[in-house]
């Protein structure tokens, strides 16, 4: 009887299951198909300062800038470089002349044409000493700019410089409307005009920034959303609560601790990137006591990076042996690095001649994560017989004091760049402008100089491998980890893609049930 019932019910069940499966796959398919319309509310955890890209220094601002403006090049999810406002390009004169062929028919939001003159104007404005643009450094290699024709512009360089193109994929490459700027230069930062997928609509400082869809956007089919609104949230806790109530759809820059509350929430999707910012400790490499290589190595062995990763990032980070994470074309071969070994650390300290009980002052910026990191470092370094005093410094003045070399020993974090030169040169070349450790190794300088002047990726990688080896030996920084980082979004939000510079792009996202 039961068997018969089973035999009768089985096809029905199969049918139901098949229907259910068809249903879910239909839903899945829908989610893959972009839908037009809707407003994306983004939680924006840092007040924007200016929409004039040549003065932008805030991390968060760029989320908005990437919507209002286009860059000449763009960074793909695999960190390769793609053309954006540039259609194609070629190198002439042994790499000393870069010819850019521009997209045709692109218009700024004010209706004026985007053309070679506009590119020249934008780059020259950044290069102008009087403008004091933070991006000027990245463009000094450009000596002159020729407008070849309406859609072709050529950059004449002092020397071949491949990393220039990746700078043009970021802040230095945002193109603003010269006409709109010249109409009201003083207020341009409040009334931005670009060629981007969204048009600036309204900015209430401390509250929100609203953008409207650009109906005449030049990239076929884009964008999908009607509006993007960046809503100010003072911190991640508030951001998560607003996400839970559905008031906002998207929050970035969340740590593993931040996302605990929403980890199992069916209405919220979490998207982690394993390799986030590089966390390390830096010191004055050429000044006592850190000019002693054995002391540096003793501290490197004293750190239990796995434990730090476990406590700070719930084990989701990646322990680091250098500034470059695995998976990029210039990543060095895997190495054991400085494994946690208290005995070895103690032995190195004894050899170094630095007396036990020597006091090291570690700066403690008022950032929760950095402060926690400092606490752990203190505990672990004290275990080998040194004394660590934490020196509290306000977050807002911390970096300024690092630049002034008023802080000797401090935690640090950096985001990856699309080209190895972007980070390695500025941190480790003796002339690098973010070289705040005083690190100077003529061999490293030579390798970095050579690597930035050649175009062959394989050859460059070989040079960067050697740089990484030197860094491991010289320890201008003690590498700690690459932090895990999350974005969280409403389940109806689709089309998000991680770019390794960690800045969310919303141009190709959409909302659909």
């Amino acid at each position: 009887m039961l068997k018969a019932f089973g035999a009768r019910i089985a096809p029905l069940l199969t049918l139901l299951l098949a229907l259910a499966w068809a249903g879910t796959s239909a839903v899945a398919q829908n989610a893959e198909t972009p839908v037009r319309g809707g407003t994306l509310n983004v939680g924006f955890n840092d007040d924007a300062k200016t929409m004039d890209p040549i003065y932008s220094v805030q991390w968060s601002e760029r989320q908005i800038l990437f919507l209002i403006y286009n860059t000449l090049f763009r960074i793909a999810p695999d960190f390769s470089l793609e053309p954006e406002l540039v259609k194609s390009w070629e190198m002439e004169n042994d790499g000393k002349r870069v010819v850019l062929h521009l997209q045709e028919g692109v218009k700024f939001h004010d209706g004026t044409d985007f053309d070679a003159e506009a590119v020249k104007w934008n780059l020259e404005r950044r290069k102008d000493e009087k403008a004091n643009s933070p991006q000027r450094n990245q463009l000094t290699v450009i000596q002159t700019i020729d407008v070849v024709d309406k859609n072709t512009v050529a950059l004449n360089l002092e020397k071949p410089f491949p990393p220039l193109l990746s700078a043009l994929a970021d802040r230095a490459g945002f193109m603003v409307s010269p006409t709109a700027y010249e109409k009201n230069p003083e207020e341009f930062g409040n009334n931005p005009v670009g060629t981007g997928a969204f048009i600036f609509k309204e900015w209430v400082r401390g509250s929100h920034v609203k953008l409207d869809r650009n109906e005449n956007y030049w990239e076929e089919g884009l964008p999908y959303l009607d509006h993007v609104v960046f809503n100010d949230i003072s911190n991640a806790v508030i951001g998560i609560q607003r996400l839970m109530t559905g008031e906002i759809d998207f929050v970035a820059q969340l740590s593993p601790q931040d996302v605990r509350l929403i980890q199992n929430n069916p209405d919220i999707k979490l998207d982690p990137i394993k390799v986030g910012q590089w966390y390390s400790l830096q010191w004055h490499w050429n000044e006592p006591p850190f000019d002693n290589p054995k002391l540096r190595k003793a501290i490197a062995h004293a750190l239990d990076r796995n434990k730090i990763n476990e406590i700070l990032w719930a084990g989701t980070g990646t322990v680091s042996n250098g500034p470059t994470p695995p998976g990029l074309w210039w990543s060095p071969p895997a190495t054991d690095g400085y494994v946690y070994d208290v005995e070895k650390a103690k032995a190195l300290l004894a050899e170094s001649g630095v007396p036990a009980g020597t006091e090291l002052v570690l700066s403690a910026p008022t950032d929760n994560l950095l402060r926690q990191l400092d606490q752990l470092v203190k505990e672990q370094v004290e275990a080998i017989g040194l004394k660590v005093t934490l020196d509290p410094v306000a977050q807002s003045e911390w970096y300024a004091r690092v630049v002034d070399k008023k802080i000797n020993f401090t935690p640090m974090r950096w985001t990856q760049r699309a080209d190895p030169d972007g980070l390695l040169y500025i941190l480790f070349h003796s002339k690098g402008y973010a070289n705040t450790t005083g690190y100077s190794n003529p061999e490293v300088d030579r390798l970095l100089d050579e690597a930035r002047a050649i175009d062959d990726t394989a050859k460059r990688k070989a040079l960067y491998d050697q740089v990484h080896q030197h860094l491991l030996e010289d320890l201008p920084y003690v590498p700690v980890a690459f932090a895990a980082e999350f974005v969280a979004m409403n389940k109806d939000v689709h089309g998000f893609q991680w770019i390794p510079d960690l800045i969310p792009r919303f141009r190709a996202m959409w909302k659909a049930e």
Partner: protein
Amino acid sequence: MITHIARRLLLMVPNVVLLTFILFAAVTNFLGSPAAIMLGQEASPEAIAALNAQYGFDRPVLVQYLDWMGNALQGDFGRSYANRTSVADAVLPAIPVTLELAFWAIALAVVAAALINSIPVLRKTIGTLVSGLSIVGITVPNFMIGISLIYLLSVQMRWLPTTGWVPWSQGVVPHLTHLIMPVLTLSAFYFGSFTLVYRAEYRAVYRQLFIKVARAKGLSETRVSFAHALPNSILPVITYVGLSLGQLVGGAVVTETVFSMPGVGRLFVNSIGTHDFPVMLAIGMLIIVGVMLMNLIADIVYTMVNPQIRLG
């Protein structure tokens, strides 16, 4: 009365000069030059030095201050370093937000403290509860109250929007719903302290002869309370409002930050983060002058409520 007000206003000038100078010296000394912040984490030392020279950050503090004060007296507060637009454009829209928040918070606290503690029935039934709430309002930090309210009323109950600000022009209801939690948060402390001050005075007044006379005349307990005890007990609260305006500024900073309100307090916090001296100083001056003026107003109101007190 008029001479008194004029004298008080004149006295404000040296006070404002002294306090703004202290503020100026403190921010330029402790925070250091804004050039490094303006140029970002990748600035070269040369670029920072050049910008320092261009903006005159390398001059002595006194010279920088006199320069700033001279312009400020002519109504020119300079341009914001962070976004390179005029300071007035940044600060003016923020003022009404903060004033409205502060007004509702103080009004709610004064009215609630006076009413709840004067209605005889309430005094008897929920007196202990109100005492407890007062202690909570005074001791629990502002941001804790704010975040708890958000969790309770927005996340759990879904009654109110979590944070943000909607101007009157976009609708009265959204404006008010966005305002409720910040006002409750900011008024919690004041409700607590006003209750304690008011109660102590109310009890003292209640023991006085004229209350007994009023009762003897056969007036109801409510009438006695509202017509006789309340007006005589409210005076110390008014003084207290005047004295606690400085704290109000601190409370507004925290409340505006928690609720993402585009007010002066939040602007101030943000300008500290970017070492935006022109904005910080303009807000500092606004707060200093504002608190002094409000104290003066509190004094005037005090004399109006109790004409026995003479201004001298």
